[in-house]
Every structure is written in structure tokens, then in C-alpha cells.
């Protein structure tokens, strides 16, 4: 990040999110905001509630109390597919691809939300259904090209190596043309080279499509490199929020996280 980056308005505002599982508090009044076009990281030790946070944002978990406003629209409880249709896409910590389908089909499934032609047209494979299918194929191919997964286009994803699966998952999320992309440990389990590639793709997505990115990542050097601002969670509470440098200097963070040797 050599030049000063400019961000838009607040795209996501999370206020007082609390969540508990059977009496155990996973999140306790966490608040933060995400600006349009920024790369926002959520970090914290294991069990800090990071994934839970993402799950609340896209409606998978229903927080006990909260206000989550996306693009100014406030939702207390929403369904995950609503979140998807509002423009939130995500990837998962443990790859959640459709293993029986090809890469292309996975990416196309990412665009399902945009495909409206009903089953009667489809059963004929004629007229508008074909037109729609082909248009979206083209869009899907652009994503495939963007992430350089052409050679595995027609491979069933269950047979792909881990790193590529991660990339296909990103492709599927991107295919939905989201305004905000939630990435849950996109680089977990990757080697150095794969991580570098993934970083490049994430930054490319952010720049090319102006997609806002919220990511969880364990590798601190990656987080410090690519994110604009960082939220630090510990035991479900927010303990710091700011630029990578600010967070690095924060004593509570050092105590809770950086001071503890990980991996």
C-alpha cells in the first residue's frame, strides 16, 4: 500500500452484537464498522469469536441482540439468503464447496441468485433459459479467468488439491458479484507461495471490483500486509480496533495475542 487509499461511506455497521450458545457467550457487545472499499481484518486467538462474527453478519447465526446495518438498511434478524441477495458473499474456514460438481458448476452456482428463468423454460432448454444460462456462463468464465483456474474448469472439485479448492471457493463467492466479501481464513493450511497468490487475488478483487473485504486470518504478517484496518477480538470481546500499526502497538493486543506465541 504505497499510496493513500480512499474509502467510501460506511457499508456495514455492527453494533452491540451478542451471541451465546447454551449459556456460553461467544460474542459480547461487539461493535465495529466497515467502510466501502476497504480491507478489514478480524483477528484474535482461537475461540475469540471471529467466525461467529462473520456468521452473524451474513445471518447464519441469529444474535441475541444487535443492530447490523448493511448499506444503511438495518436488520435485526435476517435469513442467510437475504444477506446473499443484498450483496454479501463469503467463503468458509473449512472449504464448503459442492464436492460433486465441477469447478464451472460451482462458480455458476454462485450466480444462481441472479438466474430467474423458471423450470418450465429450463426443462425445454430453449429461449430465455438458454440465453440466461449463456450470459451467466460468460460472467462465470470471467471470474475463472480472473482467478486463473481455467485448467480445472471441468474438473470435479472434490478431486482438487486444497489450495485450488480454496481458490474455487473464492471464485464461487466472487461470481455473485458481491459488494462485500467475507473471507474466513482464506489462507489457512496454505504454503508460502499459495499464500502470496491468495493475497494477490484478494487485493486484485478489492481493487478491480471495488469489493469491500472483511477477512479473518491467523497469519499476522498477511493481516498486517493487506488490511487497512483491523478489529481484534478476544473471548468474544473487542479489545482493539484500528490500523495495523495501531493494533500492533496496542498493549492489550500484545498481551492477548501477539505476546502469545502461536503456531
Amino acid at each position, binding site marked *: 500500500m504505497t499510496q493513500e487509499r480512499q474509502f467510501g461511506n460506511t457499508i456495514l455497521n455492527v453494533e452491540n452484537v451478542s451471541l451465546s450458545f447454551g449459556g456460553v457467550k461467544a460474542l459480547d457487545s461487539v461493535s465495529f464498522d466497515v467502510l466501502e472499499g476497504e480491507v478489514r481484518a478480524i483477528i484474535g486467538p482461537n475461540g475469540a469469536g471471529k467466525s461467529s462474527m462473520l456468521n452473524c453478519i451474513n445471518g*447464519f447465526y441469529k444474535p441475541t441482540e444487535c443492530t447490523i446495518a448493511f448499506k444503511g438498511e438495518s436488520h435485526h434478524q435476517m435469513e*442467510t439468503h437475504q*444477506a446473499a441477495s443484498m450483496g454479501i*458473499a463469503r467463503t468458509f474456514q473449512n472449504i464448503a464447496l459442492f464436492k460433486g460438481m465441477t469447478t464451472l458448476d460451482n462458480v455458476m*452456482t454462485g450466480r444462481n441468485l441472479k*438466474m430467474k428463468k423458471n*423450470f418450465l423454460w429450463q*426443462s425445454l432448454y430453449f429461449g430465455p433459459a438458454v440465453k*440466461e444460462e*449463456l450470459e451467466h456462463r460468460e460472467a462465470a468464465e470471467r471470474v475463472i479467468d480472473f482467478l486463473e483456474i481455467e485448467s480445472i474448469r471441468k474438473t470435479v472439485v472434490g478431486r482438487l488439491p486444497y489450495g485450488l479448492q480454496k481458490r474455487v471457493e473464492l471464485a464461487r463467492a466472487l461470481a455473485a458479484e458481491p459488494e462485500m466479501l467475507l473471507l474466513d481464513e482464506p489462507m489457512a493450511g496454505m504454503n508460502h507461495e499459495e499464500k502470496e497468490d491468495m493475497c494477490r487475488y484478494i487485493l486484485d478483487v478489492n481493487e478491480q471490483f471495488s469489493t469491500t473485504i472483511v477477512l479473518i486470518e491467523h497469519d499476522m504478517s498477511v493481516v498486517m500486509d493487506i488490511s487497512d484496518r483491523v478489529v481484534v477480538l478476544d473471548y468474544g470481546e473487542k479489545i482493539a480496533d484500528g490500523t495495523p500499526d495501531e493494533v500492533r502497538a496496542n498493549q492489550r493486543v500484545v498481551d492477548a495475542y501477539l505476546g502469545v506465541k502461536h503456531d
Partner: protein
Amino acid sequence: MFYREAGQFKSSYQADQAIFPIIQDRWFMAIVFVVAYLVIPLIADEYWFQAVLIPFYVFAIAAIGLNILTGYCGQVSLGSGAFMAVGAYATFKLVTGFPELNIIIAFLLSGLFAAAVGMIFGLPSLRIKGFYLAVATLAAQFFILWVFNKVAWFFNYNPSGFITAPPREVFGFLVSGPEAAPVTRYYVSLIFLTIFAFAAKNMARGHLGRAWMAIRDMDVAAEIIGIRPLHTKLLAFGISSFFCGVAGALYIFVWLGSAETEAFDLLNVSFPVLFMIIIGGLGSVLGSILGAGFITILPIFLTNAPPMVGIAISADFAKHLEEIIFGVMIIFFLIVEPAGFNRLWQIAKEKIRKWPFPY
């Protein structure tokens, strides 16, 4: 071996997404069509039509229907017999209530009834998964058949409890009733199978099929990328039941001629159809058809094989022996190729494409 794919490149997505992108496959399909539509009618006799081919096609439609639900959408159902019964009884009520109604229209309308019933029984699928759902569909199976058995209105108060196909013509050809020519009935079932198979294939390769497979492979992820689970599953139940309903109508009106609810019970229909899709291959239209052929022909073969080689056995003994062999073959097949005929077909095709190389 026969494939010459070099040079068959695609310069449009339309060509790339064609149902048979390889020329040789198109030729193969053309041959299959010629055989099914022209050669078989010329050479088959009544026994073949009645005992083998018509039930094969009718069950193939039901199997495709169940494969949409179970193979593509991942919802195991043991109630296909009941949905077929809905189609059959609805057709019976329609054609006896409105004698002027074209029987083909009646078949399709009955399919819609079956679809509606299927969707009602698909509602639990939102909350119940896996075998729990499978057992729950047994509720549909038992309940629906019980209703058709109990409520005399459904079989027009016929004292024997049977529903019987009345004679009905389409374009001057008698297609149902005892007088209908086997070859006419053969064509009706074949045409239905052709249309339904293509319709299923088309849905399966479109966004709907992808939504089903997404639900099947990982429902949580599917929901998060915006696929509505209930909507998608209900559509699968509806379309699957539509297929089964029409198949049920053909089962009585084009094949058996008359029947009572027992014809649709677990052992006669639901399990065999499930076998068809498992042995044919889950999530494959072609597999459904191959599986239907196998399961239809296997018992006939087992019945006819011992006398053919000159072994005389009592009918009762033969029946039980048949059961054993059928069971053993099912287990054997599942062990040898759990992914079914479709997989075998794919392997064979791949071998021929790569010939003489192994990979």
C-alpha cells in the same frame, strides 16, 4: 476408439453447453433413437412389449423422477409408489369423470396432482434430513395408499376395489384399455420417456439442477450463497412427484390395464424404483434409464433362466430362489460399483476416448 475428438472445438458457449457436445455421441444417440422408434416396433412381439419394454419405459420415467429428488437434490424418498398412485387414481377419476378429456391431458393433469401432494409431503424436508426424512416419506406411502383403499369414491365404488383403464383414443389410436394394441402403448410410453428424460436432463444442467446439487452437497453453503432451501427442495419434490405421477398413470393405463393399491406398495414400486436409481447411478438421467432396464429385466431373466437351461422347479421355490438371487445380485453390484451403471458407462466411455492409452 471410435472417438475422434481432435478438431471438435467449441467457439460458442451454446456449443460448449450442448447436451451432447461430441459428434460421436450425437451419432450414438441417433442410433439409439432409430432402434427404439423404428427397429424395436418391427421386431418385438407382444410378450416383449408387455413384459419387458413398456414396464421398462414406465419405470424409467418414475426412476428419473425419483433421481431428481434423491440423486440430484439429495432427499431420500421411499414414497414414490404413493406419488405414482396419486397419478394413477387422479387419471382414473379424470377419464371416468370427463370421458371427453384427452387421456394425454389427463396424464399431465394427474402429474400436477401428484406434484401438489408431493410438495405437501416434502414440507418436512426443511426440518428433517437423511434417513429421518426417508422414514417420514413412508408416512406418505402408507397414508396415501390407505386413503385410496378406504375411500371408495377413488375407485368409483367398484366392489372389487380395482381401477380399470377405459378405452381411450389419441389421434385415432387406441392407447388405453384392454383393446389397445401393444405397439401403440409402446410408443406412448416411449414418447413420454423421451420427453421426460430430456426435460430432466435440461433442468439438471441448468441453474435449478445446480441449486439441487448444491443443497445435496452442502446445504449450509448453498443457503449462504442465496439458494432458498425450502423453495428448492419443494420444487424438487414437486417435479419429482410430477414425473412419478405421470409414470403412475402410465403404469395403470398403458401397462397393467387395471390394478388396486397393492400395485403401488413398498415392495412392488417404491423399493424397486429406489434400486433403479442406486444401481443406475444417483444424479444421472441415463443411469435412471439403465437402472430401470436392469431391475425390470432381472426378475424376468431369473424366472425364465432355469426352465431355459432345463431345470424344472416348483413355482414357489422359484419365487424364493429369485428373491435370494435378486438380493445377492443387488449386494454384489453395490460392492462392485456403488456408483452404479452410470459410472461404469462413464469409465467405459473414458476408456474408449483415451484408447489406446490408459489415461
